[in-house]
């Protein structure tokens, strides 16, 4: 059996699953402390008679803790940043495009050092061990425990980042080191930013992992802990300590994957309608499509993989405006729905009131919306239906219509048929789709690198090399060998350069090899 937990801003949801069957699910309030909501959810989930705590093989948690820390600027550790690039790049030092409030929160110690590579793998300058030892002394003097290292074109050659990490660890054993080639892709500032974000979350990651582990112990579960990553795969506790940034946006990803799983549709659009917003994403082969460009998190421009989600202000609490023309949202009464909506005796006409008046939902007191103009109700429902259908259409990647899976508390707002959509499913357990998404997580491996094609190294060789590397990485991360499949291969050529430089991205995914906890020391080196 597996337990899936999703810790959101307001709710903590949990499910217990045996294989593909949902045995139990609970929804509780998220608490201010890290563990309270999780302990409550686990206790209620496992309280049912006949459930053997020792039969739980793994607990998978998706959490917004790390995203919130960056957005609010709290719990961020002082961080050192080392860029290996001199004599190049000095005009734009690390964190040049960060919001000042976050720079103040990190109190960074920034160092530009010699090193880095050209696009074709030639070194820009050799690494200078003496220079790095002087930086280590400064980091030690300032008592900083976490460092981000970036090197120009490290997606082509990771060698300098790794060598520099070794030199620093010799000087400062126990230093937490985040290497940019393991976190982001080509685009130095954005990759470096993501690495710094990771580095400043490592202390918090230690705390969160310890708190989650304690929560499991408190309810008598000894199974290993896994956290959801933003691509829908899992990482173990030790990996989470090293790569907390990978939890960013795991919430929408889990919700989408859970929905697709419940509806048994690996290729579909998922529409998640909540109280304030509607999120639409697209799954291919059970995994969310990734955003292609840079993404902005809390004002920091990063380029690591994130799900491509379209979000608009339409939900159960959306206010209905009649003048000058009918419009629903983006303003919402939010959590005050149960006080302010008409069906709850309030004064605000909301999307929920329209759904109740139209007979689509049974919420609150239907008598309170019986007076509403029939024409207004009809036009309102049609407005929302068209809006959602349009969002789905915008996310489509080909002319082939996509089935839609509808989840979330606000999914009652629209009727079960959408224009231009072949089928709409509203599966059972849809309210806890995000926790189910966490529970069904697999293990993945990614490659994103720049390769040069030559006479002795053909395009086929390069692609094969990248595929093998992705599979190796999935196995190293804990996938059962033999179950790993390549899910995505993407190649983009590099413009304005003669010669054949190509950027290859490969994603491989396999089943989690469940091992007893405590035996997994693969990531304990730094």
């Amino acid at each position, binding site marked *: 059996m597996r337990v899936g937990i999703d810790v959101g801003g307001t709710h903590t949801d949990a499910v217990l699953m045996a294989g593909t069957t949902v045995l139990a699910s609970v929804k509780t309030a998220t608490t201010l402390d890290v563990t309270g909501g999780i302990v409550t959810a686990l206790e209620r989930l496992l309280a049912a008679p006949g459930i053997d705590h020792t039969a739980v093989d793994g607990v998978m948690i998706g959490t917004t803790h790390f995203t919130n820390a960056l957005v609010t600027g709290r719990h961020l550790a002082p961080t050192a940043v080392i860029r290996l690039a001199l004599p190049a790049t000095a005009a*734009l030092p690390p964190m040049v495009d960060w919001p000042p409030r976050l720079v103040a929160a990190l109190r960074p110690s920034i160092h530009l050092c010699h090193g880095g590579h050209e696009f074709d793998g030639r070194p820009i300058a050799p690494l200078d061990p003496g220079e790095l030892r002087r930086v280590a002394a400064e980091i030690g003097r300032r008592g900083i425990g976490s460092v981000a290292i970036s090197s120009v074109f490290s997606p082509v050659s990771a060698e300098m980042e790794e060598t520099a990490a070794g030199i620093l660890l010799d000087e400062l054993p126990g230093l937490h080191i985040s290497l940019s080639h393991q976190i982001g892709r080509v685009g130095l500032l954005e990759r470096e930013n993501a690495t710094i974000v990771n580095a400043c979350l490592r202390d918090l990651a230690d705390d969160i992992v310890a708190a989650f582990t304690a929560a499991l112990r408190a309810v008598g579960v000894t199974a290993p802990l896994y956290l959801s990553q933003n691509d829908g795969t899992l990482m173990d506790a030790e990996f989470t300590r090293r790569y907390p940034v990978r939890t960013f946006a795991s919430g929408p990803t889990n919700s989408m994957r859970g929905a697709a799983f419940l509806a048994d549709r690996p290729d579909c659009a998922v529409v998640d309608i909540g109280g304030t917003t509607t999120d639409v994403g697209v799954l291919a082969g059970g995994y969310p499509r990734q955003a292609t460009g840079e993404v902005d998190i809390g004002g920091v421009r990063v380029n690591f993989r994130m799900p491509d989600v379209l979000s608009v202000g339409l939900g159960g609490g959306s206010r209905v405006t009649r003048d000058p023309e009918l419009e629903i949202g983006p303003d919402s009464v939010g959590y005050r729905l149960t006080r302010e909506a008409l069906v709850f005796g309030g004064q605000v006409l909301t999307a929920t009131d329209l759904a109740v008046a139209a007979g689509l939902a049974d919420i609150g007191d239907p008598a309170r919306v019986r007076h509403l103009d029939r024409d207004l109700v009809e036009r309102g429902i049609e407005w929302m239906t068209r809006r959602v259908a349009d969002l789905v259409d915008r996310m489509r990647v080909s002319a082939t219509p996509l089935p839609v899976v509808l989840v979330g508390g606000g999914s009652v707002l629209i009727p079960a048929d959408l224009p231009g959509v072949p089928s709409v499913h509203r599966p059972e357990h849809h309210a806890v789709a995000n926790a189910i998404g966490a529970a069904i997580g697999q293990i993945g491996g990614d490659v994103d690198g720049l390769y040069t094609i030559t006479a002795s190294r053909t395009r086929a060789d390069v692609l094969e090399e990248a595929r093998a590397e992705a599979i190796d990485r999935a196995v190293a991360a804990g996938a059962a060998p033999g179950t790993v499949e390549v899910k995505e291969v993407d190649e983009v050529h590099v413009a*304005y350069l003669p010669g054949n430089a190509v950027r290859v991205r490969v994603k491989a995914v396999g089943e989690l090899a469940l091992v007893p906890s405590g035996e997994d020391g693969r990531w304990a080196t730094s």
Partner: protein
Amino acid sequence: MGYELTMAALRDLAEGAAVLGTGGGGDPYVGRLLVEQQLRAGRQIRIVQAEELPDDALVLPCALMGAPTVFWEKLPGPQGIVNAMRALEAHLGRRAAATMPIECGGFNSMIPLLLGAETGLPVVDADGMGRAFPELQMETFAVLGVPGSPMSIASDHGDTGIIDAVDNRRMEWLARAMTVQMGGSAYICDYPMDAATVRRTAVPRTLTLATRIGATLREAREEHRNPFEALTEMLTDTIYSYGVVLFQGKVADIDRRTVDGFARGRVRLTAMADPDDTMEIVFQNEHLVARRNGDPVAIVPDLICTLNSETGAPVTTEALTYGQRLTVYAISTPEIMRSPEALACFGPPGFGLDEPYVPVERLAGRTGPPVRLPAAP
């Protein structure tokens, strides 16, 4: 004399330059950060008209050569472009009075601003491409007889070189090879000329044009106006007098290949209302020709821009993905870019296209149903 570039105008200029990149030219983001650093440090950037300079004032146009992917990784800086300028000054035995862009579209709009800030030299409000083009000989300067050589080239390491080629094509070819050796990006100064020659051979007021395009899109967003109508209105009093929405639709198919360092390919859009109504754009780094239901509606050197249908924000060929809602917007080029000599250099034959050049104002609207502009969002 001239005007000083403010931080706000710089942001508008960068977005407008991306529109003038016509799908290529590289995202100006990193270049904009470099110039912002200069303004924050208290340095000033003065934009001047060529008419404000004495006839014999030496103008050294400048640029970054190579792959934008490299610029985003091995971030450029002011020292390289200063080194390139000093090397050419030393070779010529004269000091520069001003710099200017060779290419106002995309990333290269930012490099002369960086050099101007670093050296205090004014930046002439003009360029030699009036948009973005992939090669150094594709310049109005070249078309009107100005030799690109001697040119200087500099690396991030402090190396500099002078290329004195027998013609502009060979200059491009030699400089490209050195750029690869320098790590895929190099700082260059070429087409050294006096201000009188700039007045005769450059496309005037293109930095101001880029700034106005960026400001128009920004204001349209702020005021919830239709950005394309605003753009068309703005262009009427410029030498790029005609702007038109060629098509609005969704990316249905995209095919990309790299041939000799060029990102070649084509993108097909289908109209929202009628899936049989399609537009195909062929690109080689920049967009070259747009065909609606098989018939050309705009062709190089007229500008074919792919813009986000909601915001008007430019979308480069590298960022094109399935399902995007795009507005294909064409802008007519000024007369200086439409002479037979200009068209031979950077018109359809310059890119191996068989179709004849027909100005966009005559082509657009000739085929298919007229494009209806949606109501302002």
